[in-house]
């Protein structure tokens, strides 16, 4: 099933409970994976990951060749080279570091190199800001990387381990970003369940590439010139791999559930079965939204939450089928795409709903008009999202249901669909 919730109800006995920050949890997952190569450059708020991991290297707790580089462009380049040479390689970054990796992100994906990279989400400059928003990862959404998003340190830990299997699956062979919110997740302590080292090593297995640069018996060329005669075919292959990743992500999640007791899917559907209105979110905002949904439910309001975990590939069909029968949906974007047509998450959710509506009664969803959709942009540069903000979103949705329209006489609105949550007028 695609609509699985994360539960820690049944914790398998091969785990212990520890208090870790998100960055510590990610560094621990990396230690347990024990990659052959890590090449990284520190940047706030990712720094701890690299710092903790370098101490694991110094203490001999991993077999990793740790490459200190002079920039993120080099970090990703060294990682690309290592994976092409047959190593399991990882790096991690944030914000402007991710931006500096830009061209190499496409080279990693286009060369089909299964790199796993935690991205600790932070606002892009300018103006300079070190706090959380999703502008970094959203900017890389079309680079051909799988994107898994995390609500908290537990999910960041679990996603990093699963990402290895997704990336290296023979039908996928694509790089994977594991996104976690800067500071909110990366620096906050959480009691989480972690697996034993041996369990993680067994789960990720050994990386056995079919072709490597270091095999003199079977020499290969990686990244050659590829003009109008074959480039298009290679992009078509890449699209197919991203499509194949859908089933692989679910299969790996199922295997991981058997190991950990925690369930993952494309998204978590919280109290959506009989809901009239819902919010769609990525990342740590889901915790706040879930709290508000439960609170409003106690007051008798039929509200729900869809927390997206997999943004690339985008599970449009499954998401639309889950939301189709609702009256209103608010999509919360922690990034301003400046398209004036809505944030990046909004445009995709809305498009998916439209596609399902076009499909009419043929799909499992009920035919008819799709839900009214609204876009709320929030939390840029680390601006807090509090329960009152989410409640105000549900109030706006209720007004939209009453009036049959998402339009309001607000001032300061860029487009008819976009509202800014928590900005000062």
């Amino acid at each position, binding site marked *: 099933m695609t609509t699985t919730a994360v539960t820690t109800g049944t914790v398998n006995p091969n785990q212990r409970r520890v208090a870790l920050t998100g960055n510590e949890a990610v560094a621990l997952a990396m230690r347990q994976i024990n990659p052959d190569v890590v090449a990284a450059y520190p940047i706030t708020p990712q720094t701890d990951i690299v710092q903790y991991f370098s101490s694991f290297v110094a203490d001999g707790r991993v077999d990793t060749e740790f490459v200190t580089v002079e920039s993120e462009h080099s970090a990703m380049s060294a990682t690309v080279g290592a994976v092409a040479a047959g190593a399991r390689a990882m790096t991690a970054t944030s914000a402007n570091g991710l931006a500096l990796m830009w061209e190499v992100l496409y080279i990693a994906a*286009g*060369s*089909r*190199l299964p790199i796993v990279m935690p991205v600790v989400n932070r606002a892009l400059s300018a103006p300079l800001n070190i706090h959380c928003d999703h502008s970094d990862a959203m900017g890389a959404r079309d680079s051909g990387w799988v994107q898994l998003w995390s609500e908290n340190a537990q999910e960041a830990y679990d996603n990093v381990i699963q990402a290895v299997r997704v990336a290296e699956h023979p039908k996928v*062979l694509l790089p994977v970003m594991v996104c976690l919110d800067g500071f909110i997740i990366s620096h906050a302590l959480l009691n989480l369940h972690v697996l034993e080292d041996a369990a993680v090593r067994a789960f990720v297995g050994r990386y056995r590439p079919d*072709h490597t640069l270091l095999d003199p018996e*079977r*020499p*290969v*060329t*990686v*990244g*050659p010139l*590829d003009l109008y*005669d*074959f*480039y298009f*075919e*290679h992009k*078509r*292959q*890449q699209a*197919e*791999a991203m499509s194949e990743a859908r089933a692989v992500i679910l299969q790996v999640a199922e295997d991981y559930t058997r190991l950990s007791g925690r369930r993952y899917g494309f998204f978590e559907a919280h109290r959506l079965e009989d809901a009239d209105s819902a919010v769609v979110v990525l990342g740590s905002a889901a915790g706040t939204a879930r709290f508000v949904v439960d609170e409003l439910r106690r007051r008798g309001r039929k509200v729900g939450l869809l927390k997206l975990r997999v943004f690339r590939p985008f599970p449009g069909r499954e998401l639309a089928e889950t939301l189709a029968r609702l009256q209103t949906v608010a999509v919360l974007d922690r990034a301003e795409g400046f398209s004036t047509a809505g944030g990046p998450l909004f445009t995709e959710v809305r498009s998916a709903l439209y596609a399902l509506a076009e499909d009419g009664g043929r799909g499992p969803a009920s035919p008819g008009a799709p839900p009214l959709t609204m876009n709320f942009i929030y939390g840029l540069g680390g601006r807090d999202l509090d329960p009152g903000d989410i409640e105000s979103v549900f109030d706006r949705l209720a007004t939209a249901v009453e009036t049959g329209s998402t339009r309001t006489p607000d001032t300061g609105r860029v487009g008819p669909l976009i509202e800014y949550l928590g900005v000062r007028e």
Partner: protein
Amino acid sequence: MTVREGAGWREIPRGGLILTAGNATAYKTGAWRTFRPVWHPDRCIQCLLCWIYCPDAAIVVKDGKVAGVDYRYCKGCGVCATECPDKAHALEMTREEAGGET
């Protein structure tokens, strides 16, 4: 594995991987040419500078002597004509009329 010309996306190695060594000869670059080096055997002093400098392998040498230009690969860069000693002037660049590999 040799990739067939015109092969579909399901048939080719992923991500542009080339799985055979020494495959550059399979890639004919002569069609790139807009200027064509013309070799005059009567003026050639057999210094082999053109062969040394050719960035491809388009100067044909037989029995240790320059024997012509391989137009299947020559991209028309003109390095050979530039390096050919002035007193010999055995390689001249002319405008490519029809293009092609011959």
